[in-house]
């Protein structure tokens, strides 16, 4: 490692300051506030707060509603991650084989990536709109009345579809570039060693894709947990009580609509711990198993 020498001892500190200040203001401070206020019960009208110890946490642990939301979040995360990775993998493998017009084809598949998340949520909302949504019409054509925001399962379905749709291009780009970074000669050697294309994929291609896939797995779990907020917000149509929501959305509804800042903070802290665990897992795994060269 090369060490740069500074003649002025304060210089490196000054250079680091902007980054440190940003992290402190936008991460440590709010995080600390969340942890701090999770031990208080706030007056709903903002007249003060009482220290309640770990009450907010025990309340969470006992709450059947919180359990239900956590259950849905788990289901939602697993399904969204699995589908968006699976479909993207299928598309990437197929796109990788296209020879003629490959660029156009790939660009078309990546297009959705350029759609900003809120716009994507809005588009998804339109697609499933009760009156003009083409997907709603399609279901109606087959005799099913899709009721987003009214029917729990229908809403869950729409949330998953839109979330998956939004995430596929990201996964596609990574997986395709992962596939293309596998040396051609290695694939050709496999071609000579194994007749079955499916077996070749699982024996050779997929293991070599694993570093990319694992990275994406973490990214997708994080996405499904946190970045689907906009989609959920549009789908529940302001009626979170009777609709499926995720833990992150519950933090928002309890805190800002239910004015239960203490409880909401406790939920945030739980989520923070979850993210921490995911990150540790990611670093551990990435360092250990999946790299070959």
């Amino acid at each position, binding site marked *: 490692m090369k060490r740069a020498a500074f003649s002025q001892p304060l210089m490196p500190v000054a250079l680091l300051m902007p980054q440190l200040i940003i992290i402190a203001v936008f991460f440590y401070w709010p995080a600390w506030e969340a942890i701090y206020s999770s031990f208080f019960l706030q007056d709903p009208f903002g007249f003060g707060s009482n220290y309640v110890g770990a009450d907010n946490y025990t309340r969470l642990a006992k709450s059947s509603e919180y359990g239900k939301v956590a259950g849905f979040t788990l289901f939602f995360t697993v399904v969204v991650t699995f589908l968006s990775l699976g479909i993207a993998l299928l598309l990437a493998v197929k796109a990788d084989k296209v020879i003629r017009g490959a660029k156009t084809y790939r660009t078309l598949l990546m297009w959705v990536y350029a759609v900003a998340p809120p716009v994507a949520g809005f588009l998804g909302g339109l697609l499933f709109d009760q009156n003009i949504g083409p997907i709603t019409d399609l279901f109606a054509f087959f005799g099913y009345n899709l009721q987003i925001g009214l029917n729990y399962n229908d809403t869950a379905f729409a949330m998953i579809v839109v979330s998956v749709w939004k995430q596929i291009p990201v996964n596609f780009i990574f997986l395709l570039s992962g596939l293309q970074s596998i040396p051609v*000669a290695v694939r050709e050697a496999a071609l000579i060693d194994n007749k079955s294309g499916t077996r070749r994929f699982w024996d050779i291609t997929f293991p070599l894709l694993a570093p990319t896939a694992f990275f994406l797995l973490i990214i997708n779990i994080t996405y499904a947990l946190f970045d689907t907020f906009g989609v959920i917000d549009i789908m529940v149509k302001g009626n979170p009580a009777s609709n499926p929501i995720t833990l992150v959305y519950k933090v928002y509804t309890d805190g800002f609509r239910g004015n239960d800042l203490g409880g909401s903070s406790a939920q945030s802290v739980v989520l923070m711990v979850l993210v921490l665990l995911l990150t540790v897992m990611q670093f551990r795994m990435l360092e250990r198993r999946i790299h070959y060269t």
Partner: protein
Amino acid sequence: MATVSVTDISKTYPNGAQAVRPASFDIADGELIVLVGPSGCGKSTLLRMVAGLEDITTGDLRIGDRVVNDLDPAERDIAMVFQNYALYPHMTVAKNMAYGLKNRGASKDEIAAKVTEAAEMLSLTPLLDRRPSQLSGGQRQRVAMGRAIVRDPALFLFDEPLSNLDAKLRHQMRVEIRNLQRRLNVTAMYVTHDQVEAMTMADRIFVLNAGGIEQIGTPSEIYRKPASTFVASFMGAPPMNLLNGKADGGKVHIGESAVPMPCADGSVLLGIRPEEVAVSQMGTIPFKLTLIEELGASRLLHGTVAGQDFVVNAPNDDTALAEELMLEFPANALHLFDAETGKRL
């Protein structure tokens, strides 16, 4: 072990470029043939067509008694060693070698026995549990060989297998590959752009140029009787000297001097290998020396004959050389080529 029989095989890409012009040849059982030529001559394409990695546009390819044109690479009973080894990075050495066997439904005991045997043969036994990333270039090369050997294929294909190794290792592996091929008595096709590899390893050499086979012959035939100026200048280091001359009345005139050589009158190219030219007081051809390259046992004299570039490989006897020398061309060392087509006359 099998013969290979190729009839009018050719390759044309969809964009119309012809990579391999129609060619026919046979390879005998246990023979090692080397495809040699400059880059872009179609030698690798030809090999990949035999492997099944490239489609065959026209013609028939037989390995043993089967036409294999439409068979998958895995069904052709071949094994290939790639230039950059193409080992599976996520598998150990043992698994790399076993993979092809496993997919052919060999039993566990059989696989273990063959892998052990191949590892033994290539001194890879202590490395069986390593990953390719933990091996040196030469060791990876051996694993690639091992992967080919365990399969016991009808035909070995080598695609420039030594070009990523340093000179010393290349020489060592060259000998090893040749020994191994002899011992296993397996038919082999070997692609290289290195004419030394071609000369030293081949039973027969195929010299390719611009998608076509220029000449097929044993190393000594290729060296002694090159079929064209292309072969003459490609095989041999330094390459054969080629002098523009005029044939007239049983003599070839080069500048002021002439060499007796019976042939039809007209423009010709007179070829002679640098190592067959003699520097001699008795010589009849004047040579203007411009540069001496010391090679130890011999030295290369660069200069001109009648204004045309010329190289002489002379024994190194430590004598000082004058700038003007006389050369002698032994009659049996002369080659004559058509000036237009470059074909041997």
